[in-house]
């Protein structure tokens, strides 16, 4: 197992993504960050904090669970649902930024887009991820990337965050077929 992104790099990536989001949308007013639980939700909270530190004010932040919209539900045992918390302003007319920890096949993001479509019609949807590891199975691409990490399919990328895992780091390990 090798650390590919130590704690200081994660913090820097989050601050940079916050700047990029603000630059793209010309300020924080129209942005809604939606993190995909579990770790994407914590990353969204951190990006929101970074945006608030830059702009002052409060950027809208929430969570979006994709479990019920996944296309691989029938290939595994049912999972417990995680919270979906949409900010009171809703998503209608907002620039929604989806936040996840790792972008891999793209299937989670497809499910998130479907879930989002049930909630309303955002003005735009973009995607921020901490790690893009490649191997897309769908035509999906991230707009804001913490770090591109080329991997082989069998390797396992693990994002650890203080809120969940007690430490901040991204590791890569040889693994079985994933």
């Amino acid at each position: 197992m090798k650390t590919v992104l130590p704690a200081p790099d994660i913090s820097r990536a989050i601050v940079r993504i916050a700047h990029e989001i603000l630059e793209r949308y010309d300020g924080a007013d129209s942005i809604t960050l939606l993190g995909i639980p579990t770790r994407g939700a914590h990353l969204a909270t951190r990006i929101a904090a970074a945006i608030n530190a830059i702009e002052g004010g409060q950027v809208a932040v929430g969570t979006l669970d994709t479990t019920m919209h996944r296309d691989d539900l029938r290939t595994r045992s049912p999972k417990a649902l995680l919270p979906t918390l949409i900010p009171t302003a809703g998503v209608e007319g907002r620039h929604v930024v989806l936040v996840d920890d790792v972008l891999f096949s793209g299937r989670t993001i497809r499910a998130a887009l479907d879930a989002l479509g049930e909630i309303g019609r955002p003005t735009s949807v973009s995607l921020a991820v901490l790690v893009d590891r490649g191997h897309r199975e769908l035509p999906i691409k991230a707009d804001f990337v913490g770090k591109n990490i080329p991997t082989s399919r069998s390797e396992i990328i693990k994002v650890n965050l203080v809120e969940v895992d007690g430490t901040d780091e991204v590791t890569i390990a040889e693994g079985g077929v994933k």
Partner: protein
Amino acid sequence: MKHLLSINDLSRDESILILDTAAELARISDGPMKKLPTLRGRTIVNLFAEDSTRTRISFEAAAKRLSADVINFSAKGSSLSKGESLKDTAQTLQAMGADAVVIRHPASGAPFRLADNQWMSGAVINAGDGTHEHPSQALLDAYTIRKHLGKGAKDLAGLRVAIVGDILHSRVARSNVLLLTKLGAHVTLVAPPTLLPFGVDSWPVIISYDLDSVIPQVDAIMMLRIQQERMHEIFFPSAREYSRYFGLNRDRINALNPNAIIMHPGPMNRGLEITADAADSARSVIVEQVSNGVSVRMAILYLLLGGAPIEGGIN
């Protein structure tokens, strides 16, 4: 889990998983996502060989909110009323490709026959069998109690629940005793001795014949329907006497704890086991039980059908 036949099929953790899933589904459905695509393409048959309003509609609403296809099948108007056997009915459902059968049947154990005999491969959900069990009702009751009185806890540890009335014929009471005690609640059964089942002294409950002494000590009081259709003998001298000793009325509501809730699985006999002002009082969560029922049944359907098909019985 492959089937939901009895509360005994569920571990404490599985029960809590159902309640947590239901809570999350309730939050999603109250918000903007009314319909979820999760069970698209799955067929759920509601096989009701006994009358029902709430349970059937509730399972139907739950299945439809999860995008499943629903086929309703009741005894009246089907070949069941021509005397078709359960086995032949089951094989018909199997041939039609039912992924799950929600069954209500006047015979205790009918869902077990359906599930155990390899008559069909789908999941079987017991929606009330005779005087035996009604697990989804117990789960929605536990959900309602936890929501009102749980103070954020996962289980019902330490909460005191009284179940009052016709315990003898009540599948709701049986499932509730199993589930509530599994979740750590203390259950008191209150009924005239004639309406308590044989062997009740071996259940993990307290038994009382005096409603007035129990009322001030409970957090939730669950009134059961006097089931006229199963009363083939005389169990109490008169309806008026029953209501006087075992009915919930205004005086008894006033003696309840300030936070206690009033429950009833429905349908109510207003004026018999519960007076109209008790049923409609601010403490009553009877209507809310119905809406919670949809969320709980969505959770059951999702957890039974949402994932990969399971071979064999309970995992």
